[in-house]
């Protein structure tokens, strides 16, 4: 194939970012619920202007921050794998959820692009990682790696209530990513603005997923059962199975390994426990996050 993004050294956009960043609308309907159409309408494109190239050049970035950026970029870029896993189940039938996913994927594409911009600024190769060769690990790990056929079969049996599990695990994943960006801003002052912007962008994703999760879990015992099962099995963050063991260990240590990180994992567990019927599994989720 010609002109693969991965094979080119530096895209032209790295030096010519979009001049301004749009304000991030709250996407709140008059009744306080999340307005998916407003979110779609105000989805944010290129984030390269949020990359403070001057600060990066002046202060440089610690090696730890560069590695974290690369890992977060790879996770943002695994969107299509995530979409595939959701769309082969009944989740693809829900017009409101798919309307959300269309813009969610778009925003994540551009977040990955901005992180490419950071890596280029410090002279790192922007291309994605080589696919990781894996050995089969514990059950949850194997489940996280299962292909579309297994997912479609399981998803067809589980039916529509599986959407609750997808939005809830998606929600936990967004919280983890927000924690990771918060940590990135702490270890690299030059990336503070970028990290804050991404946390704010993700807050809209959080609001949609939280609203969907709460409603669906409250509505159905079957949804609660499926969600508890999925939360127990999940490997965090979603997409981590595509990272090397070294990178996964580094991510867990850097984001959740400090005292503040452990407190952050505790907060995720506390908030998750406020959702209907999943309280029992919340401590397991927190325990999985910390190294």
């Amino acid at each position, binding site marked *: 194939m010609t*002109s693969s993004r991965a094979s080119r050294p530096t895209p032209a956009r790295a030096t010519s970012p979009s001049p301004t960043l749009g304000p991030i609308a709250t996407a709140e309907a008059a009744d306080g619920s999340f307005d*998916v159409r407003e979110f779609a309408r105000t989805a944010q*494109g290129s984030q390269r202007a949020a990359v403070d190239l001057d600060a990066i050049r002046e202060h440089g970035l610690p090696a730890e921050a560069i590695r974290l950026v690369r890992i977060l970029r790879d996770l943002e870029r695994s969107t*299509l794998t995530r*979409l595939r896993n959701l*769309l082969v189940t009944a989740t693809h*039938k829900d*017009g409101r959820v798919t309307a959300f996913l269309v813009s969610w994927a778009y925003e994540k594409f551009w977040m990955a692009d901005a992180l490419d911009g950071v890596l280029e600024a410090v002279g790192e190769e922007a291309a994605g990682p080589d696919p990781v060769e894996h050995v089969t690990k514990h059950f949850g790990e194997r489940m996280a790696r299962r292909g579309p056929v297994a997912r*479609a*079969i399981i998803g067809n049996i589980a039916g529509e209530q599986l959407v609750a599990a997808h939005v809830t695990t998606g929600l936990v994943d967004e919280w983890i990513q927000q924690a990771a960006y918060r940590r990135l801003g702490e270890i690299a002052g030059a990336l503070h603005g970028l990290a804050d912007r991404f946390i704010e962008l993700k807050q809209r994703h959080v609001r949609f997923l939280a609203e969907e999760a709460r409603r669906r879990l409250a509505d159905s015992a079957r949804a609660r059962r499926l969600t508890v099962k999925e939360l127990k099995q999940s490997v965090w963050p979603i997409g981590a199975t595509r990272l090397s063991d070294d990178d996964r260990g580094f991510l867990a240590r850097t984001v959740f390994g400090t005292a503040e990180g452990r407190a952050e994992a505790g907060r995720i567990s506390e908030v998750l426990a406020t959702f209907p019927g999943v309280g029992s599994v919340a401590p397991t989720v927190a325990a999985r996050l910390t190294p």
Partner: protein
Amino acid sequence: MAFDIDKYTAGSKPVAWSDIDLEEFERDPLPPETLRVLRYMCDVEYHTVCYLRDLLTTPSYNEPEVGAFMTMWNREEFWHGEALAAVLGKHGITVDFDELKSTRLKLGWKDRLDPIKQSLLGGMVGKDFVAVHMAWGAVNEWSANAAYLRMAKLEQHETLAVLLKRIGAQETKHVAFYASQARERLAESRKAQVLTRFVLDRFWGPVGSTISEESEVKHVMGHLFAGEEGRKLIQDVDSHIAKLPGMEGLRIVEKSLDKRGIAAEGPGYVPAQRVAA
């Protein structure tokens, strides 16, 4: 010519209609037979996510260029659905997310089995299967583009024409991507050519025919492509397909019209004179 993915992603945005005076549809509404076609088109656009799902079960999405395109393409098609829904809304036809859900629920077992079938096929055939998807996508985008431009011309409704031409302009870019991908992949592999030709010839049906009732498919095809002028456009689409490596002589779109008894001659659909025009 290779498709410039960076240029495409940087320029990708929702089709704009805020500057178009939709109130015009209240003063000069579209006739019911046209609204029926628009409704079909709107459903097709919103259902792009189902087609994306099938693409994602093949090895193609792991390539950065393909992944980048799919993200933008899916979003642009979603916005085509929104734009058409806005026009339908001006005629008292509401297309909301809950209704889309009920359409998708009606898809039933075929829809459930599709990703499994596609993955298994993709797994068995491997990389060559991506060529099938790309050629299939190219045919769909060529015919969608022809449909929008035809409708813009047929209806003689200035406001509608502006919107449809904007949608058509985005479809042209989608055509460019799919066709360049298909061309390259087919040129590289004889096996991909044989497989693609077989699948297109045996299984291709008009865009939307898997999610809509046959009566609707027939109405839309007849409305847009009946008669000499419409047939000529469809022959043009077929001639584009036939230029792809290994696809010489394929006439799949024309055959789909013949199968539905759509007239190849005569004037085709002629809109009634507009009152307010």
